[in-house]
């Protein structure tokens, strides 16, 4: 059975420099939907999305897991957090949001996150980002400057049996990402070509 994509208000997103749901967002949703039976069987309690943007992915996951899960989300951009709360409200679910860098301040979530989601700024760029919109996509020279700060902290953050969904671009060096931690087993859940992007 197909799970509906959450409702969201594009006007609010566009007016506030928040990353608009796009091909990468929908690829992430589709990959999670494909795994949903297995995810439900793991009986997750805590879902954390880092960089929640519009909140569409967190909302989707909360709904797909039947609501019996606690959803937490972070973003640097205050408008993204407001958007996420609005998207959650529109879909009649609850997400608790915190303004912070990545998962800074959530020390006491270590070993407790059952589903971790990150759609990072993955586009290789000459310069580091300076505006809200640039921070949504600009990933520095490798496209991984934000991701590389988070990666070492992933194994500690996940609960036993926890899963981590990450969106990356072919140019981000997928083999290196898959091999980054011996504590985790990794695979490509789904891939798709979208225009010039191979996600």
């Amino acid at each position, binding site marked *: 059975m197909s799970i509906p994509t959450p409702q969201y208000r594009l006007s609010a997103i566009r007016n506030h420099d928040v990353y608009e749901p796009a091909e990468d967002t929908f690829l992430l949703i589709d990959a999670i939907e494909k795994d949903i039976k297995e995810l439900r069987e793991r009986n997750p309690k805590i879902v954390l999305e880092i960089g929640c943007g519009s909140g569409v992915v967190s909302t989707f996951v909360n709904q797909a897991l039947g609501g019996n899960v606690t959803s937490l989300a972070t973003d640097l951009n205050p408008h993204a957090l407001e958007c996420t*709360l609005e998207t959650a409200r529109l879909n009649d679910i609850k997400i608790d949001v915190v303004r912070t860098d990545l998962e800074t*301040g959530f020390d006491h979530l270590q070993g407790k996150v059952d589903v971790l989601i990150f759609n990072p700024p993955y586009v290789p760029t000459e310069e580091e980002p300076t505006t809200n919109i640039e921070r949504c996509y600009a990933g520095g020279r490798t496209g991984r400057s934000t991701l590389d700060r988070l990666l070492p902290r992933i194994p500690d953050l996940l609960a036993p049996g926890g899963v981590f969904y990450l969106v990356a671009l072919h140019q981000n060096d997928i083999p290196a990402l898959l091999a980054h931690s011996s504590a985790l087993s990794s695979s490509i859940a789904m891939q798709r070509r979208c225009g010039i992007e191979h996600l």
Partner: protein
Amino acid sequence: MKLLTHNFMSSRFLKGVNEGYPLRLHVTKMENRDVEFNAEFVKNIMSKCDYGALRTACESINEASKLPANLPDDLSEHDDILRELHRVLFCIEVIEGELECPDTGRRFPIHDSIPNLLVEDNE
């Protein structure tokens, strides 16, 4: 912000802070939301929570009167305690207030239910 979320946060990221936990909670506006009670889910989520920190947070907003000093080992047998835990973890919504680092006194605002933990580079 729910008290469940508060339970997971610390100010250890501040320079010179080793513990930073639990953050002191100051509330100027809060609401009670209706959330469906699920005993099994409350019991499961408590396995991820620090009860001492939760009780301290509840005391600071005068919501701890029905919480025992310590949780019984056979928590599943105590429906009244599970319901009270459900209420404080999921129904209380902090709308406006502050989180305070217990070590340095640095305060982080909570506005429109959103705590802001961002600090300057030199903090």
